């Protein structure tokens, strides 16, 4: 029983990280039809910004405060990077989806290479406060505290974005844009500036995911962005391409499946079973829904 609780909580923690990584992708894809390969580079930007912040702060500052500041800086840096990329690189290629994807691919290559060139390809350890590295006992299971943090942050982000989508004017425009962008434009609403805001929001979520994933891995390294990005892609596809709630459900599902399969089958089977899950979802779902979207 205690093992089951442990697996569920760690699986949820992993799912929370996947959700944070995938939410930005899903928002951007849903509204703009841009598959953002540079999302991994955004996550790297956040992770390294956070790591540099923690290194720059004086040693007298408690580690917890350092981490909090690192998270804030990472989120802000992610947002700025997303904003700049949208305005400078994505906007001129408006409606040319394949070229937009290609540009983000180039950006992902160059960004990762730049990080590797400046800070090296070796992982840099990242400090964690003692309470985050410890465990809490719940019903006989020793649960790592950091998973609760990830779950908490993911729930806050999920509810925040959901509220934004449901109750604000911006959310109304985004939802309408996902549904039928041409009609929204025809009604005289400035979708262009909404794109910029959504890209910045996606970048912020990516930066947040990047620094939190770095604490999960215990270090920052240039390869982190790409490895997290692939699971984020899988989550977005299983969640139904651009459906925000679907992304959240899929993230939890993928995290749980991965953790359970890793424990009950063999280490490494979890990653494969996620891909299998994706294949099953694609085979069962009616193919026509996304097939028309290019």
């Amino acid at each position, binding site marked *: 029983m205690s093992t089951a609780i442990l697996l569920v909580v760690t699986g949820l923690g992993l799912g929370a990280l996947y959700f944070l990584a995938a939410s930005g992708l899903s928002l951007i894809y849903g509204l703009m039809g841009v598959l953002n390969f540079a999302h991994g580079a955004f996550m790297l930007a956040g992770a390294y910004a956070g790591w540099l912040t923690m290194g720059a702060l004086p040693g007298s500052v408690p580690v917890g405060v350092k981490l909090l500041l690192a998270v804030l800086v990472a989120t802000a840096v992610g947002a700025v990077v997303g904003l700049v990329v949208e305005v400078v690189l994505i906007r001129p290629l408006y409606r040319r989806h394949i070229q937009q994807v290609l540009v983000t691919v180039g950006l992902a290559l160059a960004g990762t290479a730049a990080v590797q060139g400046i800070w090296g390809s070796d992982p840099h350890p990242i400090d964690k406060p003692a309470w985050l590295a410890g465990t809490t006992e719940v019903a006989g299971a020793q649960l790592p505290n950091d998973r609760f943090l990830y779950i908490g942050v993911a729930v806050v982000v999920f509810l925040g974005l959901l509220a934004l989508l449901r109750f604000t004017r911006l959310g109304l425009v985004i939802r309408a844009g996902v549904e039928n*962008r041409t009609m929204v434009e025809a009604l005289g609403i400035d979708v262009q500036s909404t794109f910029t805001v959504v890209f910045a929001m996606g970048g912020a979520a990516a930066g947040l995911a990047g620094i939190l994933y770095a604490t999960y891995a215990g270090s920052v390294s240039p390869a982190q962005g790409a490895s997290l990005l692939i699971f984020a892609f899988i989550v977005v596809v299983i969640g139904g391409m651009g459906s925000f709630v679907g992304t959240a459900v899929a993230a939890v599902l993928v995290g749980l499946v991965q953790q359970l399969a890793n424990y009950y089958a063999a280490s490494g089977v979890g990653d494969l079973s996620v891909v299998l899950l994706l294949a099953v979802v694609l085979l069962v779902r009616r193919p026509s829904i996304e097939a028309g979207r290019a």
Partner: protein
Amino acid sequence: MRAVKTVPAVLVLLVLAYLPYVPQTVPGLFPDRVNGPGSLQLLAVCLTLAGIALSYDVLFGRTGLLSFGHALFVAAGSYFLTTTMTTWSLPLWLAAVVALAGTTLLALVVGAISLRVGGIAFAMVTLAFAQAASIIVLRNPGDLTGGEEGKALPRAGVPDLFVGVANAPYRYWLALGFVVIAWCAVTWLIRSRAGHAMAAVRENEPRAAVLGIDTYRTKLLAVVVGAFVGGLGGVVHAVVLGGSNPHITTPEFTLSLLVMVVLGGAGSRWGAVLGGFLYTYADARLVELSGTSAFSVLPEGLRAVLSQPLFILGLLFIIVVYFAPAGLTGLASGRRLFIRKKETP
């Protein structure tokens, strides 16, 4: 007219085939003299990648399929070859046949599943499959794939001609032969009915479907043919490098194929081949360039960034996407690329 058009290709082929007889040194361009083992090995790898880029162009440039899983098929060719030769002690030619059959079967299954979605979703799904294969290879199940170390080609099954430093010219000719086969296969394909159907699907898929083309089967054929040629490229790659390298299983490898094709010019045989050749050459040689004195005048941070070939290639890629969407060959001919046209909403 068609005969005249093949003249430049034949000329280039003849020059390339003669290179192992050229003893001169070209400073800066090659590591040693042109027919030295270092230069020929580098050229052989470049040619292999040129052929593999050509196979990827069957999907991307000819059919308009944005696949991020092509590495899967190249890796399948390579790893099926090395594992069957090690496990069953097959001779090289038989292992190559088995590897190609296995790759084709894999392409049928993976293509049939992932083509149930279109456009960007297809890209993501193929990426996931390739990632799964990459994970399997790195986990090294039953010591089959060699994990991060890669899998060496067993010495016993390979003909003496392809082994050893002195035989670099033969490996070079093997790679050249592969490019010729890939070129002929792609030429034959694009001139066939199926090739025209692929072009129709690329230009406007709903219209092709209305015209009575079975778009699903057309796309599946493109995936399978691309995988077959790519798998052959994997086989040649394994022979040229003396084994399978886990790098060719990674999504980054597929991304580099995409960069090659777009750099050279998508939907053009010259474009894909030139892109593949130049990219591989630049990736290998830029590292050495960054160690030269010309670089030491630059500030530390800039030098660190510029010493990464992928940084330069990534930037170049973005520039090409913006300013030369038809690639380097498109610059020469003024040809417009299909993705240049504005998509209808």
